[in-house]
């Protein structure tokens, strides 16, 4: 009833090409942004900010990264966590070398380091396709993980083998280290994620995004139309790894506070892949939904039995979690291979024509 586009005429191509052409969607987006930037930091408690919002945003950013590669360009990667690791370690090295430079600069710079490494591991994609490429990303995963653990230089010869986020300031306010408040960390993460989501949205709606999707849908036809496969795929690898790298840097500096190589193991890569599948391949909104669902599921599973007064051992919960995630994936693939994002769209479509069936 409230979601009608009747009477909204588009009088220019620019208006027709807008990402949110319908007024109600634009209002919805404004409400979401207002909630995220103002209401949540104003009213959210510590737990909600540090253990729900920040992690969800960090994972959403990594999911967007993987979605660019897998959802938009059709290249499956099992090395997401490793590229996040590259971002985290690069940011650590850079900020300990040059402590005077603003940390935000280094977070972005670490994205570029990750993008370079990602493009390197994307090089075989010229010769190999499909599932064969999974092996290249697995090579990245295990090789980089090995580097994190075996190269003491990366951790500044720390005996613990871990990296720890030193205290850094933005506008005189600590945003990393022990003294950073959840509010300030949340706002920085939110700012970075919101900006990068906007960039991603612009990319996938333009020439670059069309080239990616063309390669995904029919690579031979794309090449015969003048789209260079290697350039397009490498760009996808680089942009994807950039997002993952920034996400990894945010993860260590603004969420965990410190990290060991075990943070960036293959299971983490799987988890992000699940977020992308359940959220929806080739959907940015879906990346947020998938990240929220997969990240919050264990929290809910932990809290729910206690809230209902059912005693379940922590180990059992963990096992159940595996089963539930597995079942969810299968159910989703069967019911809606395009994930939460498609469900969301179908819902909106229903709303548009409500109360009529079609």
């Amino acid at each position, binding site marked *: 009833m409230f979601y009608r586009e009747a009477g909204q005429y588009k009088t220019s191509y620019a208006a027709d090409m807008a990402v949110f052409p319908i007024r109600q969607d634009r209002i919805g987006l404004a409400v979401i942004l207002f909630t995220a930037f103002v209401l949540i930091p104003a009213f959210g408690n510590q737990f909600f900010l540090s253990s729900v919002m920040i992690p969800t945003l960090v994972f959403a950013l990594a999911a967007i990264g993987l979605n660019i590669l897998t959802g938009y360009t059709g290249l499956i990667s099992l090395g997401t966590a490793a590229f996040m690791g590259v971002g985290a370690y690069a940011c650590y090295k850079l900020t300990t070398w040059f402590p005077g430079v603003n940390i935000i600069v280094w977070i972005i710079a670490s994205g570029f380091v990750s993008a370079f490494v990602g493009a390197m591991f994307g090089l075989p994609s010229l010769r190999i396709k499909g599932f064969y490429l999974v*092996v*290249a990303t697995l090579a990245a995963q295990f090789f980089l993980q*090995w580097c994190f653990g*075996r190269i003491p230089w990366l951790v500044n010869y720390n005996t613990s083998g871990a990296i720890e986020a030193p205290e850094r300031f933005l506008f005189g306010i600590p945003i990393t280290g022990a003294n950073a408040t959840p509010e300030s960390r949340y706002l920085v993460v939110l700012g970075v994620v919101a900006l990068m989501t906007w960039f991603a949205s612009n990319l996938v709606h333009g020439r670059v995004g069309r080239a990616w999707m063309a390669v995904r849908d029919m690579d031979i036809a794309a090449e015969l139309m003048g789209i260079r496969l290697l350039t397009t795929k490498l760009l996808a690898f680089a942009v994807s790894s950039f997002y993952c790298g920034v996400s990894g840097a945010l993860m260590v500096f603004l969420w965990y506070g410190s990290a060991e190589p075990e943070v960036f193991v293959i299971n983490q890569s799987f988890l992000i892949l699940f977020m992308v599948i359940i959220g929806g391949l080739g959907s940015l909104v879906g990346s947020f939904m998938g990240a929220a669902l997969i990240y919050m599921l264990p929290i809910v599973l932990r809290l729910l039995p206690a809230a209902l007064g059912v005693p379940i051992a922590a180990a059992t919960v*963990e096992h159940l979690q595996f089963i539930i*995630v*597995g079942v969810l*994936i*299968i159910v989703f693939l069967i019911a809606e291979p395009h994930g939460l994002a498609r469900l969301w769209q179908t819902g909106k479509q229903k709303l548009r024509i409500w109360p009529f069936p079609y």
Partner: protein
Amino acid sequence: MNLLYALFVDPWVQMGQAPDLLVQTLWEGLVSGVLYALIALGFVLIFKASGVFNFAQGIMVVFAALTLVGFYEMGVPAFLALALAVGVMFLLAVTVERVVLRPLVNQPDIILFMATFGITYVLIGLGELIFGGNPKRMITEQLYLPKGAVEFKILGGFVSLQKIDIAAAIIAAIMIAVLAFFFQKTRIGRALRAVADSHKAALSVGISLNQIWAIVWFTAGIVALVTGIMWGARSEVSFALQVIALKALPVLILGGFTSVPGAIVGGLIIGIGEKLGEFYWGPLVGGGIESWLAYFIALAFLLFRPQGLFGEKIIERI
């Protein structure tokens, strides 16, 4: 210069100076190669028949072994437990076919691939929930598998072979022979090869896809069980095997996704290559390169032969 020497000359010198060590390393590589090949074999069976890139094959190995040991620990006699484990693998095959494959028929490959991730997670959760997450000991003696080692005196030194490894190699060879016979000579085998070539054509001559898929997954389950027993006997049964099972992927890349001999040869190359690499080149960079070397070997091969060792040259059509 020193670096070049250490990289390109020294390892060969070492091999020459201690041939017994070399033989020992080769043997170790061969044995892990056989196990990789077995995982890859289960994978190839499923890929051939249903075009599904079965990520869960590695977990099926752990799950099968865990079921076997789990039943034994519940007081079931060893061989009855073995039979029950086979039964569980059959149930698993039927369930997977009914619940996952059938509703997803005709979906793009990537969707089916992702679905096997789902199966992987369900199996991990189920296995740990029922049998607990602690590593278990394989019931080697109870199944009358040999223990201990035999030592050979050759090349001026001793080479020691675990009897279980010898048994594993022999059993693997027998299993492959049986499978080859099954596929070449039986009616089901012929139907299976037909399905592998074209689902639609197979359907049109009255072959039941559902039945074939269930059979194939069951066969892959049996292969997984055998692999699980052999592997479990060498170390222990736990989900840590999962990461090692991923090495079946480079093996497949080498051998080609649809070639059984490819899986075997690929497995041996990866197994031996990675042991040699770790033993002779690993120390140069601080060791532990076994975790990624296999993938790099496969990648290097791929760059020169994108179709794998035994694949035919791919002609792209449009």
